Structures are given as C-alpha cells and as structure tokens.
C-alpha cells in the first residue's frame, strides 16, 4: 500500500507530473520573455493535456498494436524512476543498493518507447524521426555514463543515491570540485538531448519532420507522451540535483536548485539553432566525450 502510494502519488506519478507540467510552463514563459512576448498562463500545460484527453484518438490504417501500447510503457517505466529519485531525495534512508544503475537504465526507456511507437505508426516521417532518436540515444549515452562513473569514483564507489548524498553532505557538493564541474557541463548537455530540446530536438523537428516521432499521435496517446516529457523533465532535474548539488536539501534550496537547472536548460534551448543529426553525433562523440573522459581522469586523480 505504501509502495503503491509512493509510486502513484507522492514522489511518483501525480507529484512529478504536476511539477513537470509546471516546469514546462516555466519553459514556455521564460522562452516567451526571452523573445519579448508575454507567454501563456501557468495552467496552460494542464489545459493542453485535458484537451488532448477529450480529443478523438486516431489509429493509422497500417499501425500495429504497439503504437497504442508504447506511450504507456514509456510513462509507467519513467514513473518508477521518478519514484526512486524522489524517494532518495525526500525520505532519507529509502532506496536500495544499485538504484543509481537502475535509474540510468530507466531514464532511457521514454526514448525507446518513442522509437517503438514511431516505428509502429507506419509513417515515413515518423520512421525518419525514430532513426534520428536512436542515433541521438547512442550519441549521448556514452558521455552520460562517463559523468556517472565520475560521480561513482568521487563518492568512493557508491552506487546508491543515499550514499552519494551522504558523501556530498560530508564533503560539499560535487559541482564545486574541478572534475565535478566538468562532469556537470557534460551532464547538462546530455540532459538537453535526453529531453529533446533544441539544439537536439532533431527527432521531433517541427519544421522538417512535422513532429517527427509524434506525427501520427493524437488524443490520449499524445497526452501520455506530453506527460512523459513533463515527468522526464522532473526526473532528469532531480537526477542532476542528486548527483551534483546534493549538499543542502531543505525545500527552499531544493526548489532554487531545480529552477536553476531548468533555467540553464531553457537558456541553452533558446540560444541555439537545431543541429543536424551528424553534427549532434560528432559533437557528443567528440568534444563532449573528451570532456567526460577528462572529468573521469581528474576524479581518479582525486581533484
């Protein structure tokens, strides 16, 4: 019963979806202010989701059943990750040995669900989007794993969120050390690609692919994908907070850190044009991976 509550309500679905939808609103509002506009009201993303729930769901003629299943797979998997992350942050002592590894895998599930759904929709533009999403996944996972290895080495081989937080409470946030700072830059870039924000919104490119992976989705499955993205924003930001900014976890500081990470991501989003897929791949496997390796070496040296 308690586990079900954690999964569905507090750190899990309801909490992370509400926080994520508000974060989406912060994104739209800050983007609007950057472009000298006013921007939508705070409840805009909730309205969007409610509206999508009331619309007709269209199943394309040659789509498979996985077309309708994959959004649910992505959302259910991701809620588990959000529940583990929230549990580690809000209830001290929660979690199990190795939950870091589990969450790293879980954070890849939404992208995989999107690839499955897009491939099942039978639309050529969606399959182009799916192939791009797949390449992007391959591109950013490598440097992302380097940053996580850096954190593991810095916290003396701990693969549990609780131990990482304890280590940071004892020795200060990892971001303020040299290797942690470099790893944070790498992790922010990987998060940007994970969330599908510009300059890495290659799979969803509105102008060239007309929505890319989401092109055939309407009504309920589209709402689920929007919710998945909202939960992913929450989960990825909490993940970065645990890994790099785990020193002071009082609610006010937690909120400030959350908004700081959000604003960094939004600023990158609004100041960069979309990269081509080959440019993104070269960027992640070139400079970003080298930075990740550098932070790893520095961490081994103890800096």
């Amino acid at each position, binding site marked *: 019963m308690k586990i079900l509550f954690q999964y569905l309500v507090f750190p899990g679905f309801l909490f992370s979806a509400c926080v994520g939808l508000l974060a989406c609103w912060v994104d739209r509002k800050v983007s609007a202010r950057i472009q000298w*506009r*006013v921007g939508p009201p705070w409840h805009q993303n909730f309205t969007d989701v409610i509206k999508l729930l009331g*619309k007709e769901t269209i199943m394309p003629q040659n789509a498979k059943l996985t077309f309708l299943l994959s959004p649910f797979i992505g959302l259910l998997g991701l809620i588990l990750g959000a529940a583990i992350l929230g549990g580690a942050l809000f209830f001290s002592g929660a979690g199990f040995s190795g939950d870091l590894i589990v969450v790293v895998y879980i954070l890849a599930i939404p992208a995989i669900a999107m690839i499955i759904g897009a491939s099942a929709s039978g639309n050529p533009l969606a399959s182009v989007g799916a192939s791009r999403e797949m390449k992007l996944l391959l591109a950013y996972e490598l440097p992302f794993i380097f940053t996580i290895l850096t954190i593991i080495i810095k916290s003396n081989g701990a693969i549990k969120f609780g131990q990482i937080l304890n280590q940071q409470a004892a020795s200060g946030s990892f971001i303020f050390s040299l290797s942690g700072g470099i790893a944070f830059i790498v992790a922010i870039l990987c998060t940007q690609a994970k969330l599908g924000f510009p300059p890495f919104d290659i799979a969803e490119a509105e102008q060239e692919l007309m929505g890319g992976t*989401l092109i055939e989705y309407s009504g309920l499955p589209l709402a689920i994908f929007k919710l998945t993205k909202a939960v992913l924003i929450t989960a990825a930001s909490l993940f970065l907070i645990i890994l790099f900014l785990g020193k002071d976890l009082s609610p006010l500081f937690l909120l400030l850190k959350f908004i700081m990470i959000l604003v960094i991501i939004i600023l990158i989003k609004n100041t960069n044009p979309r990269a081509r897929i080959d440019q993104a791949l070269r960027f992640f496997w070139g400079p970003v991976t080298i930075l990740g390796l550098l932070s790893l070496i520095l961490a081994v040296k103890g800096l």
Partner: protein
Amino acid sequence: MDFRLKALTKSIWVFHASVGSCNNCDIEILDCFTPRFDVERFGIQLVGSVRHADAIIVTGAMNRKSAPILKKIYGQAPKPCVVIACGICACSQHMFKDSYNVLEPLDKILPVDVYIPSCPPKPEAIISGIVKLVNKIRGGK
C-alpha cells in the same frame, strides 16, 4: 460550462494549410505569433502535424491540385476540428473566380466555421475572427 469545451477553447492548436495562396496571408498569420500580438497568451500554438490540430486555418484559393489534398488533410484531423478560412481568396475565391484552375470555393468542400475576409487580413482581424469562433463554440453571446 462543459469542462472539455473550456479546455478546448483555451488551448487551440492550429494547423496551417496553405492551398495556393500568394503568401501574404501566411505572413500575417505568422505575425500573430510575434511579440506585438502574441496569441500564445491564449494557448494558441502552430503545430506541424494535422493529427495534433484543433483548427485548420486555410489560406488561398483552392486549385485542382490542392482540393483533394485538403479534403484528405481534413479527414486526417482528429475531431472536434474547426476550419478557418483566412483571407478573401479562401472565403470567396476573389479575383480567381473565373480562373481555369480554380474549381469551387472552400465552403463547398469543407464545413467552414469562420470567415476572415480582406486581402490580407490584419493580425487584429485574425484574432478577432478567432475570438468570434471561440464564442460561437462556447455557444454564448
């Protein structure tokens, strides 16, 4: 008021179908999203795929090539979906009325919900048309 209806009118996602227009209406539609008018305040967004759309905004006089495509696009849109005729060409074919290439007006093919005349309509006119449409959907005024 109906909850679903309210959510629908508060977040209109617009698919922009240009069926042979001269681009002036298209530019004026894009002007609605610029800082001066900023219709995103009301939750109106341009979307790339017609599957996400709540409204199809049609510009230009339909010709032989684009008429079947527009019909197909309307069929692909999830209902409820409204059609907005933007510009005098879409409303009444204007100077292309007797052209060999232009067959029939838009409202013979699709159920048009709101007409926005003028060549091209100002962004104020487009916003006013959308306000009238929202009032019509809500069944008031």
